[in-house]
């Protein structure tokens, strides 16, 4: 019998309020972006899409989108390749080594990003990677790769170890086994890890602040400067574009995951 409990009911109402607190404020940028006046204001006095026109016609914003896309694609690619290989390797070592190596892979998420950023800044100035797409991508990969390792690792852990053995017993070569048994099994992990790696790089601010320079401004850096210096509604329009793109990517990944689960 489900007993009616006021305490439990109160906790659930409070929980619902917390969930609302988590989600609703995020969308405050949306109404602000459609305001006609040059001041940011919620709710908007009169609706207009002029700030979106301004956003999509400004070469600085477009260049930033292009840079961010290049950096994110490169960082995702490197993360997927290195991270997947590492996840496969981690499955094959003993528990102690696995713990140590996993610690190394996750360390960039534990060390404060500001610290990693200034260390990278210092080193990359010397070797000329500062202010380049490659430099940014390598820096971002530190933060993106752990998610690939973890997601692929989970898919691998779910894979019945007798399947590759059965394939080997049937005379299949290791590479063939990987292509026909392992790869299909880790596909949802690759999709989820890759997508999260992409969005992590695309949204990254702190490393980018130190590594962008003037030549390779990413979208978040352009936004960061706008918010700090000018504070115009174009920033709200840019934020809304990022927001919608991110939510769509999130839903796509959830869709792929739910299909992978069945």
């Amino acid at each position: 019998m489900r007993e009616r409990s006021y305490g439990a009911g109160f906790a659930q109402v409070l929980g619902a309020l917390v969930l609302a607190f988590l989600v609703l404020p995020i969308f405050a940028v949306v109404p602000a972006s459609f305001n006609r006046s040059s001041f940011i204001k919620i709710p908007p006095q009169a609706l207009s899409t002029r700030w979106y026109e301004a956003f999509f016609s400004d070469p600085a914003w477009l260049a930033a989108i292009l840079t961010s896309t290049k950096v994110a694609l490169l960082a995702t690619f490197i993360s997927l390749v290195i991270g997947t290989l590492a996840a496969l390797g981690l499955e094959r070592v003993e528990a102690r080594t696995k713990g140590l190596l996993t610690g190394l892979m996750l360390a960039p998420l534990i060390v404060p990003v500001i610290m990693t950023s200034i260390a990278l800044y210092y080193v990359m100035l010397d070797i000329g990677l500062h202010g380049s797409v490659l430099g940014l991508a390598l820096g971002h990969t530190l933060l993106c790769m752990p998610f690939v390792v973890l997601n692929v690792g989970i898919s691998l852990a779910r894979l019945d170890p007798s399947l590759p053995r059965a394939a080997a017993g049937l005379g299949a070569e290791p590479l063939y086994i990987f292509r026909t048994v392992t790869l299909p099994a880790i596909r949802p992990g690759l999709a989820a890890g890759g997508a999260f790696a992409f969005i992590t790089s695309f949204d990254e601010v702190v490393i980018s602040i130190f590594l962008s320079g003037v030549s390779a401004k990413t979208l978040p850096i352009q936004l960061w400067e706008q918010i700090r210096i000018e504070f115009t509604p174009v920033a709200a329009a840019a934020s809304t574009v990022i927001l919608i793109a991110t939510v769509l990517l999130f839903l796509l990944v959830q869709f792929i995951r739910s299909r992978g689960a069945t």
Partner: protein
Amino acid sequence: MTTAETSREQKIAYPIHRAGRVFATKLASREAIVTCLLLLPAVLFLTGGFVFPLIKLFTLSLESEGGTLSAYREIIGSEVFRAVFVQTLILAVTVTVISVLLAYPAAYLLSRLKDGWLTLAIYCVLVPFWISVLVRTFSWMLLLERNGPVNSTLMWLGVTDQPLKLLFNDLAVHLGMIHVLLPYAVLPIYASLLKLDPRLLQASNGLGASGLQTFLRVTLPLTAAGVAAGATFVFLLSLGFYITPMLLGGFHNLTVAMLIDNFVNERLVWPLAAAASFILLFIILVILAVAARFLSIGQMLVTR
């Protein structure tokens, strides 16, 4: 069978046995090489792109003009810098406590929901992970502005006559950081609630315990690990926070991360920046070592 026969049999068996062993060793060493090759790119990348820069940063922290440890001495000795560390720790503690208190009911609600409602509620926790911290912080700037919706609501309600100063202060920093870090507390608590066997709650009820007694005596102790994991993660992340306090805080809302940035970009004193970084890392590692018995960080990160 005589002894001679036995030994002859052994002699015959031995080479076959040895051949098998050699073959197995070869196979094992080939396996080991493959394993190394799989792990090598990641290890090389992290060594070159992460460990090496940190080592360079460490040597930098020792290259102060006043002697090897003078940068550390300067930071620890300075009242101003010490105050920034203390302030950052206090901020982290407050944010952690409030986050856990808010996360528990949210996780509890998640554990009671089913099907469509559950999906919706989980998305409420997961979507913020994906949205740029910058965009989320920017949203708070718009909400807390002088003429923003929070102020106009407060005035409409008659709480205040004129707009309150809600931005660039402690309140805004706390709100923004809790908002960003809360999901990190919700997920491990939710995971621990899911692991809780509902029959234990039934058993407690059957033995005469009220809802509150069951919560305090069964639910809470059995989800303590989830709470500890969530709290540790929120605490560690808030120690290194940069963007949110930078945008939402005032001049006095200085965190260690902002101090490091200031050393590098304004005052150009790299040894001090490096030393401050390593002091912060030391604090983080100590906390992590204490918490390590409770949590598996890898497990917490993948729930998204």
